């Protein structure tokens, strides 16, 4: 009796897992199946799950017709800059907050953490006016700079530095190393894992950022992938094989980063949510 109900539970769980996994995988598989068809098959009257003729035409046309290569370049450049600058700024600030004694430390840290509370979305209007005054509309600087303020990254790094035994630092200080030297040669080498995790998550976040580029960019040549992909109807017209090819190309870098660094990515996202990984 008990064994039988156990069995039913197991069957239900397996069925549930298979069903959910299929549901969640389906939209992407369907996009792949669409992108590999010739364009006329997407509007044909008879329905097929798989392409009747397999072709890479849609990918070829997508890459040569619109501004997609340019958007890919912009996204790569902006995401890379955001990641590098965010890491540099945040490591320095986190180290100062965690290890150095200076006046105003408490207030400054509290102020930085206040930023957790304010939704970025509510700051768009004055932020746009600031960028306008600085002449940074439609520029890489304008795209990058507001994205490098990341209190959560500072918080995660500070938590990590707090846990490193003070002996490490004092030993180096007694050796005559200045604080910058200590950060560089003692703390950084110890934080490889967490820096990687936060860097990947920052990169994915910057790659996927839609809202800020949407506000700050009006010229087609300065668009990043998430923004550019919303313009594809104008670029390709309503050609679904090409649209799906464009979507998949835009998804590839972050999708790949996730598949390759699965553990790091999940660790980073958990840490960035303020919860322990």
């Amino acid at each position: 009796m008990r064994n039988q109900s156990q069995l039913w539970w197991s069957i239900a769980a397996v069925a549930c897992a298979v069903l959910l996994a299929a549901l969640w995988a389906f939209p992407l598989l369907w996009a792949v199946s669409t992108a590999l068809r010739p364009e006329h098959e997407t509007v044909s009257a008879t329905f097929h799950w798989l392409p009747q003729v397999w072709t890479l035409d849609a990918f070829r046309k997508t890459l040569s017709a619109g501004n997609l290569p340019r958007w890919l370049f912009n996204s790569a450049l902006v995401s890379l800059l955001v990641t590098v600058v965010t890491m540099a700024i945040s490591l320095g600030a986190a180290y100062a907050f965690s290890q150095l004694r200076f006046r105003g430390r408490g207030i400054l840290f509290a102020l930085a953490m206040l930023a957790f509370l304010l939704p970025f979305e509510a700051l768009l209007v004055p932020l746009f006016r600031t960028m306008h005054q600085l002449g940074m509309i439609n520029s890489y600087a304008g795209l990058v700079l507001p994205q490098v303020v990341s209190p959560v990254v500072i918080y995660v790094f500070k938590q990590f530095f707090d846990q490193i035994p003070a002996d490490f630092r004092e030993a180096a200080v007694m050796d005559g190393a200045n604080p910058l030297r200590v950060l560089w040669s003692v703390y950084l080498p110890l934080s490889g894992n967490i820096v990687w995790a936060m860097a990947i998550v920052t990169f994915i976040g910057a790659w996927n950022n839609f809202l800020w580029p949407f506000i700050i960019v009006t010229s087609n040549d300065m668009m990043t992938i998430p923004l550019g992909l919303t313009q594809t109807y104008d670029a390709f017209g309503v050609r679904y094989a090409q649209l799906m090819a464009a979507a998949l190309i835009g998804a590839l870098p972050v999708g790949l980063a996730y598949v390759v660094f699965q553990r790091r990515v999940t660790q980073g996202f958990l840490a960035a949510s303020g919860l322990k990984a």
Partner: protein
Amino acid sequence: MSRGAASLNQTQLPQPASRPAPAGSSVRAEGLPAMLLLAPFVLAFLLFFLGPALQTLYLSLTESSLTRTSAFVGLANYATLVQDPSFWASLGNTFYFALLTVIPLTGIGLVMALLVHRFVRAQSWLQGAFFLPYVLPISVVTLIADWMLQPSSGIINHLVGGQRAWLSDVHWALPVVAIGTVWWTVGFNMLMLLAGLRNIPAEQYEAAALDGARGFTLFRAITWPALKPVFGTALLLQLIASLKVFGQTYILTSGGPYNTSRVTLHYMYETAFTQSDAGYAAAVAMAFMFVVIALTLVARLVAKRSS
């Protein structure tokens, strides 16, 4: 840089040197390096965060276009706001969207977490399938959704029959965007709840199993009580995230039909960037900020109480 650390470790670590440095001297010695290390962050923070935050407050008290401020008008924008049916409608749409997403996103997230936790051997596959959409850009998701929902040749209409134009349907537009959002973001909630599940000590299960607990009894007796605080946090974080909806509705429905899917951030955006009424948009932003901050504080309070 790792070489330096290695040599430091070798030469210095064995010496126990845990003596607190004299406070006064170190403040002076460390003040300058601290300033150097903090300067880039402080500058960026003031320019791109604190500044705009204070400016939002100021702008909301003025009559301003997108680029210039013409007059200080006190609370006039707020007086308009409380009587503006479009604002209240957008807030209603926002909360309706939250209602449509919060429960499925946390509920399905919980089911997914339990499944990933249970099927150890399929773990990375299952987790991959559930989490992958979360790392995709929003417009990839909306492109795929738009194609699947296409009235004449989309696969959804092929499966359910008919030629419904889901995204311009008064009753369906927002629920359909909500379903897409569940697909897109549920992975994050799964991850949080999975971390919660992994924190439950195995001994608790073993003890309960010895007492004869199985299946759902085990879930009710051990899993759920231990997971409840994490679930509560996930619920409130999700509520806040759902209230910030903008991209999905903007791209998929443009707020239509008849503004029935125009959410608060969309209304703020239109007010500022298409009507160039930055003063009033700032008042909308302040109201939005108030709602989000209030809910965040409640979330923190609940989290603190349960931990």
